[in-house]
């Protein structure tokens, strides 16, 4: 009888296995592939013939690729020996928009390697779900407009985690999450990019425990028109944004363009553009020497923003909460700000405030710059704070309503009274 039991158990196990084709390995992946440096061709071929539920291990060393791609799969892990150990170099890229491209993968993880020197973006993850990018360094050594746009670039994805990553040298954003839903960026660092990190048209994002420094702007939360979805509901906390004062080397739209990262003024800590339901708290925002925090509407950069309103775009930021952030700035603007179009506007606001009020004794631009454009211009309303801007900060010289609609007119009058906007 006992022997029958054993046989039965065996049969059950066998039948389950045959029917579900379940994982055979403790790491949860069915197929296991492993490669070393020099096997680039084999790797490229393996990625073209990957099966669902595959782990691809890349041993320590430097690999040289033109470009790589992974498409239409489920449950894939690309695993290096560690960010400093496994290096994928794309300096030979001859076509395509990125070094490594991932499209339509449900369950994609890349962990423990360096991606570097592609012509386009370093890693673009398009239309995928349950995406994890961890312990990845994504780097261009030379930070100029010849660098690709984004180092780490999930777009049109659902459920994204970017963790323990480092991005450097991107001519747009180092870590960029675009048109996605449910994203976390944590324990990451970004240095010498135009924007350290950008959350664009992405909803339900949390950004915490990161360090963004040495960029043009530390952190951006942007909503742009004409895209597949609206962003919003973004919380950023416990981040350290400091010394983001570099010139804006974004090629596209550096000068005169209405939209995009080219608008980020050198010396920006955090910029919120046209995104709503944002909570910025307990961040250390130090020595970003133009605006520690800027909150602006689509109208700030495009007077025709109202024409672009639809289900996917609303130009005026609503429900912006700013509280308990530590902020400091240096005595003067960064040099690069004077050559930048929105930078000049910030300089102009500081000059105007000081001209209006000599008792400011030539104080710096306040920490928080708000463009002062509310939904009143759409509704004809007269409410003082119709969009529930809520600020709870103790610093002196805290806030300026830039009265952006009147910049350049004789009636222009930026004001510094934060009282109507203090959180109730």
């Amino acid at each position: 009888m006992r022997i029958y039991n054993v046989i039965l158990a065996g049969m059950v196990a066998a039948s389950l296995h045959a029917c579900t084709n379940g994982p055979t390995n403790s790491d949860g992946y069915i197929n296991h592939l492993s490669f070393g440096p020099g096997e680039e061709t084999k790797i490229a071929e393996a990625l073209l013939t990957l099966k669902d539920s595959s782990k691809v291990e890349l041993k320590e060393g430097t690999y040289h690729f033109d470009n790589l791609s992974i498409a239409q799969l489920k449950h894939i892990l690309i695993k290096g020996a560690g960010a400093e150990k496994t290096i994928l170099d794309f300096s030979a890229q001859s076509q395509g928009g990125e070094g490594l491209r991932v499209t339509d993968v449900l369950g994609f993880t890349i962990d423990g390697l360096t991606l570097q020197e592609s012509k386009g973006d370093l890693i673009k993850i398009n239309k995928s779900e349950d995406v994890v990018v961890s312990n990845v360094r994504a780097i261009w050594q030379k930070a100029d407009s010849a660098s690709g746009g984004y180092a780490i670039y999930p777009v049109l994805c659902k459920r994204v985690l970017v963790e323990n990553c480092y991005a450097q040298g991107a001519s747009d954003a180092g870590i960029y999450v675009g048109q996605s839903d449910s994203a976390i960026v944590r324990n990451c660092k970004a240095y010498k990019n135009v924007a350290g990190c950008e959350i664009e048209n992405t909803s339900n994002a949390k950004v915490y425990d990161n360090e963004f420094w040495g960029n043009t702007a530390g952190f951006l939360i942007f909503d742009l028109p004409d895209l597949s979805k609206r962003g919003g509901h973004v919380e950023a906390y416990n981040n350290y944004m400091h010394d983001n004062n570099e010139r804006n080397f974004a090629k596209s739209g550096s000068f005169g363009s209405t939209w995009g990262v080219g608008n980020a003024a050198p010396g920006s800590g955090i910029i919120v553009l046209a995104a709503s339901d944002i909570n910025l708290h307990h961040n250390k925002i130090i020595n970003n020497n133009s605006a520690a925090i800027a909150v602006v509407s689509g109208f700030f950069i495009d007077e025709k923003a109202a024409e672009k309103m639809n289900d996917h775009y609303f130009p005026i930021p609503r429900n912006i909460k700013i509280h308990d952030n530590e902020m400091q700035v240096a005595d003067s603007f960064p040099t690069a700000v004077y050559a930048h179009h929105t930078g000049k506007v910030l300089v102009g606001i500081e000059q105007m405030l000081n001209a209006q009020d000599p008792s400011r004794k030539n104080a710096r631009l306040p920490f928080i710059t708000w463009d002062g454009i509310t939904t009143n211009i759409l509704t004809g309303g007269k409410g003082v704070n119709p969009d529930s801007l809520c600020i709870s900060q103790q610093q002196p010289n805290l806030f300026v309503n830039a009265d952006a609609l009147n910049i350049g007119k004789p009636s222009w009058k930026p004001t510094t009274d934060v009282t109507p906007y203090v959180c109730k």
Partner: protein
Amino acid sequence: MRMCYVMAVMLLACISCNNGAQQKKGPFQFLDRLSDYHFFEGDLKLLQPRKGVTSYELATPLFTDYAVKDRFIVLPEDSVLTYAGDGLPQFPDATFIIKNFAYTDTLHQKVMIETRLLYKDPYDHGWKVMNYLWNKEQTEAERWLLGKRIPITLLDDNGEAHTTLYQMPNTNDCKRCHINNSTLTPIGPKWRNLNFTRAGHSQNQLQAWAGMGLIKNLPDLKQVAALPVWTDSVHHSVNDRARAYLDVNCAHCHIRGGDAFNTGLFLDYESTAKVPGVLKSPVSAGGGAGGLDYDVVPGDAANSILHYRMNSVEPGTAMPELARTLVHKEGVALIAAWINEMPKR
């Protein structure tokens, strides 16, 4: 005894599960060589179709480095294409679509490069892609996943020579253009792009096919949309020709659900925008935009990103991103004319 019964049930369950998998034939496996399919008779490189293999052309084709293209469709026996409105025909399972790429060398010889296959697999009713690389001897094409950069010197449409590294795509590259909303589909043979009279033929291509019994439910041709022939300046306006060109060369990605969905620039012929891209700022073009502000600046091609990227061969800038290493001078000229004739704003 009861235990034995349970065991027997388990055993049955197990067998039926395994049987199920076996009864259904596995997914289609592409053959090793092009000749293995017996699509053609005689010397393979002459591409003489056997019975049941139908050659076709498109009113406006995709540009690929001035490549000379031959296209064929192979329907399984007793099967037809079904017309069910605009867009693509309904293809029967087990349809092959064959596209051969060659170039004209400096001796004016046609040199075969690659042959791309699309197959509609009865296993899951989905399309699959494979590529075949022609050998030096020009006698055979072998299954080739990896793509290849092939140094060639070709003559363009005006007999001018260009030396380049032709980019044969890998199978994922194929998918990039052929996937829409996560489903792989053919691109070229849409009804509107088949609906014309081929050079040297007297009858409209669709009419000819209907006569051969290849199409079911084809309405009167007047009711079938027709894509303008992009070079036909006698019958079509610059606008119509440009929109046809953009549809075929760009809209496989620049369409809702396509690879460039995230850019918000939609260039399909049916796009709701009367004039796509006008004063639209780039989203994620980065340096690819060349420092320009808008996709299309009416009256000013030189400051339009669309024109700039079509006129470039730099990776990261060049559009389309794949399978083009030379500028399509004639195509760029058409787009320039289209933009420049728009009234300035």
